[in-house]
């Protein structure tokens, strides 16, 4: 049973009772619970009052709350709430108090359409936009009908799409998650990849994507090429999962426009792309001295762009002084970090930064956690995993030729190095 009600609130902005047999005033208990938790510095995405369970997510300063009294599928509820955010963003650009008020009629219409009696229905915003629009309609003159797509097996792409020039743009984006202990050993290193599509194709094209997937190459007996071992792959619902399970073929009818076709994850033992060594010395009541060495550990033909290294400093530090061998430093008191920016960081290079802060003679009593150094960067034309798009075959019954374009980029994900 997924039976529940949805509220979007700050104080309740808009709500929808999908079951009809619940007291909508129960939600009045929600905000006080949130406030109490905030006071106790607690947090839980699932709270209870009496027999009502509230599952909530927060978007900007809005709470999206689902209320149920049954043993609902919690994973479905959260997943649905995030989907709602996505739909609203597609419709109104941003989901915030103002956009809800400005469009409350459409919001009601959408809430009626995306869920019925607690069962999520159509949540694909592109398809929704075909029959829930922001203009009023007259029934006799072209009131919309539910597109067949809504209930079709191919529920993500409508028929009759036409483009003069047929193209597909692919972005292969790899994010590196890294966790390094204070002693400098790599605790976790993970690559989360994502293949994004921008599809500009007419009709109902059949696509087949070929990757240098290790399992596929083993099946087909081509073992000499450089391959990638994908640990776990997740696909957009357009991909035929049983087919992939059987022979690792990625075949699909793509949604029109932009979408994420697949994501994958692999644990690797590759060298961290940007290595940081740091010494943070705190002399109580007087000063903090920070020395940071950054080294790029990728081939020199690649270059990392927009590198930002965030080094934590005590919250009561003052009078910053910096010295860098390259790039520039900025003290961000609101985040209690010093941010070292390097516009362009070629492979195989090493740079230094020193920072000096004063500390007040009266020490703050508040304990501070030992925050890690975090790093942001992006390296274009490069994937850490070595994944390659070998081909993208596009077949449409009208027989047009279409060009696929592929772009590779590697970027920092959750890139943390613990400090002493």
């Amino acid at each position, binding site marked *: 049973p997924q039976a529940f009600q949805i509220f979007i609130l700050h104080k309740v902005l808009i709500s929808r009772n999908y079951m009809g047999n619940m007291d909508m005033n129960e939600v009045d208990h929600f905000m006080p619970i949130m406030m109490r938790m905030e006071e106790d510095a607690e947090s839980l995405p699932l709270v*209870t009052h009496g027999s009502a369970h509230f599952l909530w997510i927060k978007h900007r300063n809005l709470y999206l709350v689902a209320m149920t009294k049954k043993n609902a599928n919690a994973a479905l509820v959260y997943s649905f709430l995030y989907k709602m955010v996505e739909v609203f963003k597609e419709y109104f650009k941003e989901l915030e108090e103002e956009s809800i008020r400005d469009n409350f009629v459409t919001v009601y219409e959408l809430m009626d359409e995306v869920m019925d009696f607690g069962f999520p229905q159509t949540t694909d915003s592109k398809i929704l936009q075909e029959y829930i629009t922001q203009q*009023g309609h007259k029934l006799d003159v072209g009131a919309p009908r539910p597109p067949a797509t809504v209930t079709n097996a191919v529920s993500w792409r409508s028929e009759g799409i036409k483009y003069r020039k047929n193209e597909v743009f692919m972005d292969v984006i790899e994010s590196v998650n890294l*966790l390094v202990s204070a002693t400098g050993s790599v605790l976790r290193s993970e690559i989360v990849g994502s293949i994004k599509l921008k599809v500009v194709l007419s009709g109902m094209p059949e696509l087949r994507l070929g990757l240098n997937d290790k399992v596929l190459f083993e099946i087909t007996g081509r073992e000499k090429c450089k391959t990638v071992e994908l640990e776990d792959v997740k696909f957009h619902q357009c991909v035929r999962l049983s087919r992939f399970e059987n022979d690792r073929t990625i075949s699909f009818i793509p949604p029109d426009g932009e979408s994420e076709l697949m994501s994958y994850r692999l644990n690797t033992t590759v060298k961290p792309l940007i290595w940081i060594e740091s010494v943070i010395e705190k002399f109580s009541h007087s000063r903090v001295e920070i020395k940071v060495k950054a080294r790029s550990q990728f081939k020199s033909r690649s270059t990392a762009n927009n590198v930002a290294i965030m080094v934590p400093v005590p919250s009561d530090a003052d009078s910053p002084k910096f010295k860098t061998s390259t790039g520039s430093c900025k003290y961000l008191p609101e985040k209690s970090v010093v941010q070292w920016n390097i516009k362009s960081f070629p492979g195989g290079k090493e740079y230094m930064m020193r920072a000096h802060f004063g500390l007040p003679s009266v020490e703050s009593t508040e304990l501070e956690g030992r925050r890690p150094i975090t790093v942001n960067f992006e390296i274009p034309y490069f994937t850490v995993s070595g994944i390659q798009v070998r081909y993208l075959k596009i077949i449409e019954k009208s027989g047009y030729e279409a060009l696929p374009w592929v772009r590779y980029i590697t970027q920092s994900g959750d890139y943390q190095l613990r400090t002493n």
Partner: protein
Amino acid sequence: MTDSKYFTTTKKGEIFELKAELNSDKKEKKKEAVKKVIASMTVGKDVSALFPDVVNCMQTDNLELKKLVYLYLMNYAKSQPDMAIMAVNTFVKDCEDPNPLIRALAVRTMGCIRVDKITEYLCEPLRKCLKDEDPYVRKTAAVCVAKLHDINAQLVEDQGFLDTLKDLISDSNPMVVANAVAALSEIAESHPNSNLLDLNPQSINKLLTALNECTEWGQIFILDCLANYTPRDDRESQSICERVTPRLSHANSAVVLSAVKVLMKFMEMLPKDLDYYGTLLKKLAPPLVTLLSAEPELQYVALRNINLIVQKRPEILKHEMKVFFVKYNDPIYVKLEKLDIMIRLASQANIAQVLAELKEYATEVDVDFVRKAVRAIGRCAIKVEQSAERCVSTLLDLIQTKVNYVVQEAIVVIKDIFRKYPNKYESVIATLCENLDSLDEPEARAAMIWIVGEYAERIDNADELLESFLEGFHDESTQVQLQLLTAIVKLFLKKPTETQELVQQVLSLATQDSDNPDLRDRGYIYWRLLSTDPVAAKEVVLAEKPLISEETDLIEPTLLEELICHIGTLASVYHKPPSAFVEGSRGVMHKRLPLGGDIGGSPAMGAGFGAAPAVMPASLNAPVGGGLGDLFDLGGGVGMPMGAYIPPKTVWLPAMKAKGLEISGTFARRAGVIQMELVLTNKAMSVMTDFAIQFNRNSFGLAPAGPLQVLTPLGPNQTIEVSLPLSTVGPVMKMDPLNNLQVAVKNNIDVFYFSCQYPISMLFVEDGKMERQVFLATWKDIPNDNESQFQIQDCHLNSDAASNKLQGSNIFTIAKRTVEGQDMLYMAIKLSNGIWVLAELKMQAGNPNYTVSLGTRRDGEQHY
């Protein structure tokens, strides 16, 4: 211009103004007014007074306006039921609209209006919409059946909507199928015993096919529905698993978790030595790990579920320790859950890394997290013996930090380490004692006092330390008081000479000055012990303690099984069964995993019956007719108390055939309830737990009416008597002999099968009296073929005594006549399945042999 302007209306005379606008001739003005009404409703103002005016706007050609009016109706129809009826006509008309969007909108909205009068009118339009040509309408109508069922279940059944809904499972459109499945599952939830979903290999196949074609949400409905099915055997189980596995690659975390649920459940039936079992285990790990990259709330749900999975099948994630390492920016609820899983996965292989992490966490600033980290270090010490020493030294380092709550937490866990490894780490006691003063939490104080008492002989100033606590005895919590009492008694037994005064003091504090009954009782017991028999006191108080177990906080196995069946739901997040937090769900069947196919490599129990009847000895070979003979209780005198006949207990399952478990038993009918009375004896060397029982299908649909209540583990040489109430609503299959019952009993060791026969008299129901006229008519109706005769020999009862005796077993004498010195008793019996059996009993005075003629109108039953 945006909609926000509708929220700003003048306060005074607002309703009045709106009323006028709603009745305006201008369409545009009307629409504006309805928008204002909805805006007021949205901000919580009561605009129900406008009901008739808004309903008047319902017949409009403007779609947007129509939707708004419908929205208004859903909100206020309940408070204005009489006026809501005005809307019915438009609803019915809209259900016939050429535009499917309107038809669906009407049927969707009508289902949300919980007014009986409207509900009645819903039936016809709903019936049409369920057969609508447009799948968009059908998928909406399918959900509407569930809505209607929630309002008026009887109506739905009477109107035959359930059958139509079942038909929709074979619909050509995947979304219709998905919604039909969702609706049926929802309805089935409130009828746990109905066979609504009628899951069988054919329908399962349909669902698996639809799984490939429907939306992500539809896939979840179907997977959740599949999880309720119990495959017939391991082969079916495997083939379903194979078709569900591809869902693990779905981008939606909820689809993945529902697929994991199905796999975790069906895996239970796969033999462990099967290659596929290993493959499946390997396939489960990567998607579970990937869930940790989802949004934090989904991570939380995933982690709570992984916690269950790790307890049920630790092998799946045993190599994935690192992914549970805590990140600085994880929300606190994610951190705490990760920590919990880290401890569960800790093993000798990864302990060094785990400890390094825990030490790092213990120096964080979040108090809850730090405490849990310190506790985790203690648990590692207990779990992985090789690491104990390192854990203790880590804890000592942490105590040196002097952070108050860290110190207290550390002392609590060190106490447990002492209990696990006695006489090994006592050298640290001195360090602990240094921190005595800083302990202000009861648990830490109690732990410290326990340590001092336990090791009193090695602590020179133990008496001083304990005495210092005694000063504020009455301000301490009960936990500390009890511990202090015991510790001082221990101290006295170890160093009697110098502590006599102290022990006197604590005993009098506990017995005379306290009003806590537990404390007083414990005090008196010690006092008597010490004054009557100090040697016995020593044996009792200083007795060797059992070692504490390695795994703490494990979820009790039956609950764990139930929670595995609820993966992804609130129950799995709370780690509580749904009955604990959903109102009105008490008494609903608890979900259970299918009994394991891997136990002894035999096929699952449910399926095993069909395959393996040969192993079941027919232990009772008496003919069924004998059952009646038994009723006369040939040996027993007339003086026996009246009551239903209960055969003596016989051994059904000898211990040598069941790895030491002996089962004997009998059947009885007590106060109208059939009971299976079992005696379980453990003749093995080890403890038996986790008992469960199942019956094969049988002639009268006998089935356990509840679980087998063996709550405490059964120790070696222990015997337990259990009464299992039976119902007669289970699946029916004709057995030979008819009263044969095949039973499977499971325990932690294996599954065992036996068969036994129950006395038919147990099925005789209490309302078996028949009108004389009816009896006569029925007796004549019985075809000759359905009559049988047999003799009962050597019975010394007169007719009245016999009649009384039989009535005790629900055999009722309807008439009696005497012909030529023969007493003829005419009797009626009604069986639990509604079949009547009529009997004529001829008895001749002085002749101990009786003749019984039996007859029943239904074929096939005459051999009673």
